[in-house]
């Protein structure tokens, strides 16, 4: 006889484990008994004749036999564990038994120890994410560009979440825990992904720097040996496609405002595509040391 089963897709953060226990109790009352517990989905089997009370424990088990025996001898049936260390136990509900018979943690110390374990993990995770975001922020400051505002907003959002997570965990450390490590974790991942996707899209949508210059085929006089100007709207990498030909060896230079040489190329003929230059925001000038008889083709991306 095949039994009726169902799968639910719910996600509880670590600090919501008590809510999860209550939800499992309620499901059991309605005849759905937990079969397999997972981080994102759980499997239930229909059995209206039973009613259980559930408890969750979080720990790394060193001696599983001893662990299960300690629970079994007090009437707890081991149901399942999630891969990340949450263990599910249940006991047949007997209305005559006092409420504390359905608690696996009977003193503050052990409950705090249990909460401390996942709180440490969650904080560690938060710290890694925080460090990542900080590095990202520094990088954005060093290379300001259009998406900065959006990254900054995402960054702020993440920071707010981190702080909220930390506060919730702080609270659950002092009072009885009522909270989830997963939601923080999942929201972080979602936020980071969103951040990266937004950044990529915006970087792609950024006004493209495409100047196309062609200069001096025959006898074009150049005043002061300077020919053209280019302004970099933001600090970034720019790509030059440069091609020139001249009757005598010539030198092409990119100069910054102070007259410093940012790039130079010389020869009778020259052709190179995709020359990468990191240019801080500002105005740049191009110069050639011959005044006529050359052909120059320059594209900036």
């Amino acid at each position, binding site marked *: 006889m095949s039994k009726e089963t169902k799968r639910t897709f719910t996600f509880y953060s670590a600090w919501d484990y008590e809510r999860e226990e209550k939800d499992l109790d309620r499901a059991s009352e309605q005849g759905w008994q937990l079969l397999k517990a997972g981080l994102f989905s759980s499997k239930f089997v229909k059995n209206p004749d039973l009613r259980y009370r559930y408890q969750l424990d979080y720990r790394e088990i060193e001696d599983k036999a*001893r662990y299960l025996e300690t629970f079994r001898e007090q009437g707890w049936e081991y149901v399942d564990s999630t891969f990340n260390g949450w263990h599910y136990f249940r006991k047949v509900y007997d209305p005559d038994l006092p409420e504390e*018979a359905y608690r696996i943690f*009977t003193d503050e110390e052990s409950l705090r120890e249990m909460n401390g374990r996942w709180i440490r993990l969650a904080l560690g995770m938060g710290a890694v994410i925080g460090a990542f975001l900080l590095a990202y922020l520094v990088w954005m400051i060093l290379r300001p560009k259009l998406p900065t505002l959006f990254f900054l907003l995402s960054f702020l959002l993440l920071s707010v979440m981190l702080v909220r997570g930390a506060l919730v965990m702080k609270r659950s450390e002092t009072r009885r825990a009522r909270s989830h490590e997963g939601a923080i974790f999942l929201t972080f991942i979602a936020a980071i992904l969103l951040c990266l996707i937004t950044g990529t899209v915006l970087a792609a949508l950024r006004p493209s720097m495409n100047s196309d210059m062609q200069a001096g085929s025959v006898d074009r006089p150049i005043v002061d040996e300077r020919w053209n100007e280019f302004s970099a709207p933001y600090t970034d990498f720019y790509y030059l496609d440069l091609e020139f030909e001249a009757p005598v060896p010539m030198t092409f230079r990119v100069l910054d405002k102070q007259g410093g040489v940012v790039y130079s190329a010389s020869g009778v003929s020259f052709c190179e595509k995709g020359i990468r230059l990191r240019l801080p925001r500002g105005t740049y000038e191009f110069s050639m040391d011959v005044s006529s008889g050359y052909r120059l083709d320059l594209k900036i991306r």
Partner: protein
Amino acid sequence: MKRREPLSESYFYILLCLARGDNHGYGIMQMTEKLSGGEVTIGSGTMYGATDNMMKKGWIREILSGGPGQDRRRLYHLTDEGCEALQAEIARLRRMLNNAEEE
């Protein structure tokens, strides 16, 4: 001798029960309830955590009773260190009680 941290109620009763002889988790739980007149209960999560910690401290030790074919049970045994920890706690409690009763 360095000052010992006060024991939690659960730790105290576990050690106290084992001072009366080797016992398994369930036995300790029942004896604790009886001794404390139902005031102190030790749930499975608390029991596992406490015995785990005390084994790491060397206060108690695990022994498997019964030979092959017999009902094998996991018993906990109080070590000398555990006995010392219990005595120190009793002395601390007695001192506090004496202080409270003085005058």
